[in-house]
């Protein structure tokens, strides 16, 4: 990172938090650190037996962690061109039955391995489009989960679902509430008609409002919306209008993701005309605009791509020091063992990560043979655990307290991280972080470049770059 080295100048804290020039210089590719080590490090030598052993060991903890279950529903009615998720496009709802059959088998195989007193405190449905499932199928799926796991019955439990409002009426939302969902995350991306046409996703403000209003009426604890900047045809003028419309919808959380154009990896993205994509300075302005408008409207910048109202659980968890980063971005339930169900889902049990088959035939074949569909993963070693903790502290709380870190991991911080501290001093000159004797502190400008800071601690990065892994850009 020496090419970024500048004259060391004292940076006043009152300086604008969002510094476009600075952020542009750090527009390099890197993992998003929803896990450390990042998913490209997972390997095929990790299999079903390793996952079973990890579950057994996790049951043996004096106070076993509670459970968080992610369910992947891979179906969509039509393809959004920006999408990089693992999904299947079909208009035939009965297609889901073949999949659900295997999903039930997976639930029945994995759930009994967890001791029954470990409650399921967090449930998240993602996709694809979870609301591709009609009421009957959704009810059956929840039944299967409730039968095989011990649902937490307290109001603190977090049952969330991602919703495509184009195929979700108020009745569906009320049905979700009856079945215990209390969090909803609604995909928007952009309300501008030109952008919507360019990405093949036509969705009105009214449809979106109907879903969010019904969710609030039904007592959902948290409503969230997703936006994407960097989409084709996006301009600052029109995105400003989208942001105003989003703010008027008053969600509790807003996620504003950077579009990563990787058409060689994601087939759907080949439909996008590269010439329509905003250039780097425009992307930067779109991000700046989002930060400016959302913070002015009272949202707190949590980190990476997430904003939340100060009263929301996410902001509260950040205040309480319990915020965690996981595959859904940020989470208030990071102290759980995570079980990923369905095609391509990732589990995080004890000090292991594991991922299910990423295509339907392999996923089906494993379950038909009575095996868990794990195809790759890894076991974190001591060094991974130490680095994961450092990255977690900095990405969730912006602070790493050196004394308590040394106590937790039985190490001498300055000695252990001598090389990393040298790298941090480079970016300290740019005012992203303050490296003190007793703590590391991410500055208000550094909050926008958490990936860059985390990358300083990533021991796998150099190796994976040499192996040709491609990450999306930080910006």
């Amino acid at each position, binding site marked *: 990172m020496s090419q970024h080295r500048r004259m060391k100048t004292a940076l006043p804290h009152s300086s604008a938090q969002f510094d476009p020039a600075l952020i542009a210089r750090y527009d390099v590719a890197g993992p998003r650190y929803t896990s450390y080590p990042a998913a490209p490090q997972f390997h095929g030598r990790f299999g079903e037996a390793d996952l079973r052993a990890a579950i057994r060991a996790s049951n043996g903890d004096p*106070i076993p962690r509670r459970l968080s279950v992610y369910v992947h529903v891979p179906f969509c009615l039509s393809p959004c061109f920006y999408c990089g998720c693992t999904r299947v496009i079909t208009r035939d709802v009965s297609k889901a039955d073949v999949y659900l059959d295997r999903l039930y088998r997976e639930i029945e195989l994995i759930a009994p391995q967890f*001791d029954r007193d470990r409650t399921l405190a967090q449930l998240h449905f993602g996709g694809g489009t979870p609301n591709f499932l009609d009421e009957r199928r959704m009810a059956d799926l929840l039944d299967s989960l409730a039968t095989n796991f011990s649902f937490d019955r307290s109001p603190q439990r977090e049952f969330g679902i991602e919703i495509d409002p184009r195929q979700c009426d108020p009745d569906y939302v009320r049905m979700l509430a009856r079945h215990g969902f209390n969090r909803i995350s609604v995909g928007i991306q952009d309300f501008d008609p030109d952008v919507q046409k360019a990405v093949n996703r036509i969705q009105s403000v009214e449809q979106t409002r109907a879903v969010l209003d019904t969710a609030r009426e039904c007592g959902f604890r948290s409503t969230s919306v997703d936006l994407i900047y960097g989409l084709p045809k996006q301009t600052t003028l029109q995105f400003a209008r989208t942001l105003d419309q989003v703010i008027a919808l008053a969600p509790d959380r807003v996620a504003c993701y950077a579009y990563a154009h990787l058409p060689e990896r994601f087939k759907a993205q080949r439909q996008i005309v590269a010439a329509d994509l905003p250039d780097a300075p425009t992307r930067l302005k779109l991000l700046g605009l989002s930060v400016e408008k959302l913070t002015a409207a009272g949202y707190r910048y949590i980190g990476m791509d997430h904003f939340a109202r100060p009263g929301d659980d996410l902001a509260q968890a950040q205040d309480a020091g319990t915020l965690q980063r996981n595959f859904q971005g940020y989470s208030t339930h990071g102290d759980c063992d995570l079980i990923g169900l369905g095609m391509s889902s990732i589990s995080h049990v004890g000090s292991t990560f594991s991922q299910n088959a990423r295509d339907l035939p392999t996923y089906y074949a494993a379950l038909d043979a009575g095996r868990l569909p794990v195809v790759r993963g890894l076991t974190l070693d001591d060094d991974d655990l130490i680095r994961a903790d450092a990255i977690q502290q900095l990405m969730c709380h912006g602070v790493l307290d050196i004394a308590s870190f040394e106590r937790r991991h039985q190490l001498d911080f300055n000695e252990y991280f001598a090389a990393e501290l040298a790298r941090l001093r480079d970016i300290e000159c740019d005012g992203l972080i303050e490296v003190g004797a007793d703590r590391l502190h991410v500055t208000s400008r550094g909050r926008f470049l958490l990936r860059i800071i985390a990358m300083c601690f990533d021991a796998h990065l150099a190796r994976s770059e040499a192996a040709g892994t491609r990450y999306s850009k930080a910006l």
Partner: protein
Amino acid sequence: MKDTQHPGRRPPANTIVADDGDDLRFCSTCAFGSVCLPAGVDKTALRELHMLVEHAGPYRAGEHVFRSGEPFAAIFAVRGGVVKTRQLDDDGREQVLGFHLPGEMIGLNAIHAEKYPCDAIALDTVFVCRFSFPALATLATKMPGVQQQLFRLLSADIGKASLLAGDYSADERLAAFLLLLADRFAARGFSAKAFRLEMSRGDIANYLRLAAETVSRVLRRLQDQKLIHVEGRDVELLDRASLQDLARNILHQ
């Protein structure tokens, strides 16, 4: 032990393998160590004693140090790691007899029947010292120190077994369990405040004759009351006085 140590890493608290013994001295943590303490011990005899000590291991987690029914040939001192002793009843149900920390002896309860009455299983990576019993018995006739130490170890072993019998609540049992474990770690020079529970909660529950859920429920409560802090398998005793108060009926029996 890891052969590659990252710079700046300190060895974890209670996972050190004792290895500071030599021809004339036992390892500092060893339960047999006090044999050498009396002044004027015959150095030839002492050397003879050390000659019959064999280092064995590493045993990986789940491996047997000895099996129930095997002919008794030796007693063992745990040098590193934790060993669980257990019996299986006719229906194959397990009964955990105890957990043995570095410096402690196992196999003493085999002397009488001349075969091991229980399984000894490594809970993590375990190293032991093996004392051939026939040789040790012969030596004991020549070295009164050795004999006395054997008697001391035997009586301590018998005392330990009765400690958790009796009609005590789950809270009392767990508080006593943690405190006694802490004392045993402290006696071997490890931290009495923070240690790692290598045994699973199932093993703890079995040993204390409680349900596994109960073990976790009580520990969670003790944690909520700020008496302990649990993170994974690591336990820290935050309020010893309150724990002692809770366990007083067991500890003062």
